[in-house]
């Protein structure tokens, strides 16, 4: 009796399995018949023609970047003394009176320090490889609460002040588009490009 019940149940289970398999097969066949051929064969045009040509003025207004070779530096100039005044007015509240780390918790990082390698904290003197980056960054992002508010001459002056405070240029120096890219930063010699390409080596 018990065996018979089990047999009946097994038969029922098997029938169920077969039925499900058949249904699944039918479903797949249906699915395939409706499937769109893989791969869109439409050829892309050489150009879509979307967008518009900006005016030279539009490009110039946005093109604010400065490269290490000086490309992008604007006309104008700045000096250490003017920079000191501007620093006190616009930078000192976040970076400290002289840009030197004093132990007090300030909103901005220390900017002035020892130019010896491995010095802490990281400052312009010991960790910035290019002087042009200083101009570029101050012009695009500083002061934090009024970014983009400095004139090019003001940015040259603040750059001059910070380079002098880090003992990289003399107090009488006047910076412009010609001499800023020629400044060799103390940290330049430390920087190396990552040459790892994946693979087992831990480097």
């Amino acid at each position, binding site marked *: 009796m018990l065996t018979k019940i089990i047999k009946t149940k097994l038969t029922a289970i098997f029938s169920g399995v077969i039925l499900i398999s058949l249904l699944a097969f039918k479903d797949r066949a249906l699915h395939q018949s409706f499937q769109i051929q893989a791969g869109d064969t439409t050829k892309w045009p050489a150009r*879509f023609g979307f967008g518009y040509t*900006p005016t030279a003025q539009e490009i110039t207004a946005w093109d604010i970047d400065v490269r*290490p070779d000086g490309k992008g530096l604007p006309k104008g100039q700045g000096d250490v003394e003017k920079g000191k005044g501007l620093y006190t007015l616009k930078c000192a509240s976040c970076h400290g009176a002289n840009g030197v780390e004093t132990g007090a918790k300030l909103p901005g990082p220390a900017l002035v320090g020892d130019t010896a390698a491995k010095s802490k904290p990281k400052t312009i003197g010991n960790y910035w490889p290019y002087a042009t980056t200083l101009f570029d960054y101050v012009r695009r992002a500083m002061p934090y609460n009024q970014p983009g508010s400095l004139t090019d001459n003001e940015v040259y002056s603040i750059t001059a002040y910070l380079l002098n405070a880090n003992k990289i240029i003399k107090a009488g120096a006047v910076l412009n588009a010609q001499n800023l890219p020629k400044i060799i930063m103390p940290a330049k010699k430390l920087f190396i490009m990552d040459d790892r390409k*994946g693979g087992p*080596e831990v*480097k």
Partner: protein
Amino acid sequence: MKKSDEKHTVSTPTKISRRALLGGMVAAAILPVNTFAGYVQTSTPALSGPGDDPIKIPGPGPSPVGKRSPFENPVRKPSDISSRTPLQDMYGTITPADLHYERHHAGVPVIDPAKHELLIHGLVERPIKFTMADLKRFPSVTRICFLECAGNFRTGKEELTPQDVLGLTSQSEWTGVMLSTIFRETGISPKAKWFLAEGSDATVMARSIPIAKAWDDAMIVYAQNGEAMRPEQGYPIRLLLPGFEGNMNIKWLRRIELSDEPYMTREETSKYTYPVKDKIRMFSFEMDARSIITYPSYPQKVERGWIEIRGIAWSGRGKIVKVEVSTDVGKSWQFANLQGTILSKAHTYFRHLWNWNGEATEILSRVTDETGYLQPTLKQLIEARGTALGGYHMNPVTAWQIKGNGTVLFKVES
């Protein structure tokens, strides 16, 4: 895993009224949130009164925007400059957009998409400005990949959650246009070797990217997990560089300039660089392979018996090929099950079943990617790079200590 059902989950009996449940948001506000080390306690609500049986009273009807269950409250952990994804609350690999990690340098800009434009210029055949409508007309592409901040790793104390240790990574399904499609449109000079990508945040954040990435898999994306991208992730458009450090995936993208040289911006020189012996390594783009066990982890408690160890693993250099788990302090390793489909440059979920005998031990995971790179130990990284290390591109194997009483603590190594 439904947390509220599990014995080993920290739980607090909480009384939630029917009204609060129907109210949704009200209930979310009432739910106690234990912010101790950022771990959000799950609650076991004790329903009260005859009206609290869900099979006896019809629930609220359809709504314009869905909400999480009032019994669940996964949250990011924000600081002044970033917020971290609650990795311990994730059961899969797609991060809900509102829990995606954030890192920004001058806050989240408010950008009207109707006024937003993208300029491509420099070493191109023709400079072009695109409106958002223009960008959306191009053939679109969708892909899943992780994003990760290059500074993603924290240690130093035992009371750290996965969110604290490694919460600066998240994963989304991104939709947009291939950068190569846009570059075909402008035409690129053969002299162009790099491009500068620049955002519209208040630091006008900019990074130099090798042009090979544009022809490979870079995208300009406007959608995240099927809807318009979140402001914190770069609304209305961001650059997406699968596998590359988060900072290079410029958000609120407004300008790309083609160049024959890199620009040496502040973020690629004085930031996102790190000491290697007596030098400073720059231009580390790919995020190296790493993994983390997200369960069990601090501050959960486990019980003797079967435990499914769970976590995520990924590599910025391609697909992962295996994850190994050790339950005996790294003496022996076993393969974890990988949840398919395994995607390139994507978080992959792994699981490993473990029968804990109740003895104190440490559990670890390590991943190998398709380049043959095995996630290193902290000791190996120190040997290769020196003791100074710095905070960027650190991907050591991490461990959780399982104490005899079932307490789980992060293993601090140095």
